[in-house]
């Protein structure tokens, strides 16, 4: 599975997106999941990383980069509140769940 990352720009971050990604990379099974640049061909999932609820990077043209999408929105995932320290693990689970439908 190939995941492309899109960052919002972190103009006034509530969460540290780089730390989240760093921890997420440790959680993921590298044999099954690769994090690649967003402009890579054939991305399966785009992970839109917004450092606050405003979610500037959650735009149609970004979502269209892949058939699947998950958003971080400050202390939310897909606009549902979560605990900040749990974000990487919850993302891993969500990626696994969404990816299970892929051929």
């Amino acid at each position, binding site marked *: 599975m190939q995941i492309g990352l899109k960052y919002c*720009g*972190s103009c006034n971050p509530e969460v540290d*997106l780089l730390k989240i990604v760093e921890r997420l990379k440790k959680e993921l099974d590298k044999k099954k999941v690769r994090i690649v640049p967003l402009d890579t061909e054939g991305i399966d999932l785009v992970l839109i990383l917004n450092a606050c609820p405003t979610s500037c990077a959650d735009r149609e043209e970004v979502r269209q980069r892949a058939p699947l999408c998950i958003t971080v929105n400050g202390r939310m995932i897909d606009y549902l509140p979560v605990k900040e320290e749990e974000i990487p693990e919850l993302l891993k689970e969500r990626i696994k769940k969404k990816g299970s439908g892929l051929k």
Partner: protein
Amino acid sequence: MIKSGKEYVESLRALSPVVYAFGERIKSVADYPLFAPHVNAAAMTYELANHPEFEDILRAKSHLTGDVINRFTHVHQSVDDLVKKVRMMRLLGQKTGTCFQRCVGLDALNGIYLTSYDIDKKYQTEYHQRFKKYLKFVQEKDLMLAGAMSDPKGDRSLRPSEQEDKDLYLRVVEKKKEGIIVRGAKAHITGTVNSHEIICMPTRTMTEDDKDYALALAVPIDAQGVTLIFGRQTNDTRRLDGELDAGNAKYGIVGGEALIVFDDVFVPWERVFMCGEYDFTTELVETFAGYHRSNYGGCKVGISDVVIGAAALVAESNGVEKAHHIRDNLTEMILLAETCWSCSLACSYEGYKTPSGAYTINPLLANVVKLNITRLNYEWMRLAQDIAGGIIITLPSEKDYRDKDVGRYVEKYFKGKEGFSTEERIRLYRLIENLAVGAGLPEAMHGAGSPAAQKIMIGRRGNIEEKKKLARVVSGIKEDIYFQKIVGMKEKEYFAQILRA
């Protein structure tokens, strides 16, 4: 092209501007210690554009070439661009804790883009085409421009053409086939010494008598006849004393301003974007001022994020973080800062498309941003001083802290709560001193125009005549057709009915 921070610094070494500071002719701007913090701050505007976590804000797509460029060279093509600009300001304010200088040039590019288009429409001149070529050049090379508007002005009760010394405003003294010769000066210009180019605009509305002063042009920083004289600031030489006493040793305080002298400088026509069209000076001044004022709710609020963090940390290091007045002060600081942030967002979201195709901010709200900053910035810095205490102006120097005989006393007697080293506390106190007791306050007051200028614009654009109409209708002086529709009869009949009852 998008330069890295390092490439930007390197690019300064290739230039040879005539720069004076402290009585010395400076050979290399990039290597002069007193300029280092300003260079570093400006370098951040380059560096962050090269990191994926910031590129959505720091990068844009050129509407001229389709290339990806640094947003500091972009002419805004949408409301989203205007919003991203102020987000960029807040981000850089947070990262540097100071003025990072490059926005003046950005706003000058946008102001001249709009105005040159309008001048050409009226006079069938070629300014806009020339300007687009220049803009492409700026974008391709990823240049930093010093936006130069303020003239020295002399006797402010006199117009430029009435001054005894005609050079007190920048003017054209000769027109040739290849270009113009200009003479005069621009004062208080931010980031000049570490810019690649100077882009000049008129500082006020000009009349027909002042048409030689109705000038917009660009020159390289090392053009023949240009001399830069660097300005002094409170505690500027502290940066030569080590790291701690400067407070913000990496990025300094304010932008590093200079007097730019134009001693019969030749400017080729392809770099002239207004020359004599005095009837467009108001538009250019107000357009630039609007763009520039809209930034302050971004950059100063980003800096406030740093000072709020520093104040919270010193309170913690003193063991008083739970005290009611501390928490109240911190909340108040956040309230004031976010109020200004709201204003910057509002003036951006209320922006609109101009005939040139570029987008501009809402001018009324832009002036509201800046006027609020002139007041509220002082208040949140006052609260930072309140939280930090008098220690910010009584701490011993770094030299004493590091001294083999007395350093141990400083270490011992300035220790706070467990978990904070004395050095950490000194760093935080010095940072607050730097931010709250220095040149940053007058910069917030006067940068992009003094409070009186904003009040003039707010008064002019506040639409008082329309508001009078509203008051006449609601008070009953004038007919209220919607009320009549609600009650099904004229107001007078309706209230007469109530009286009879």
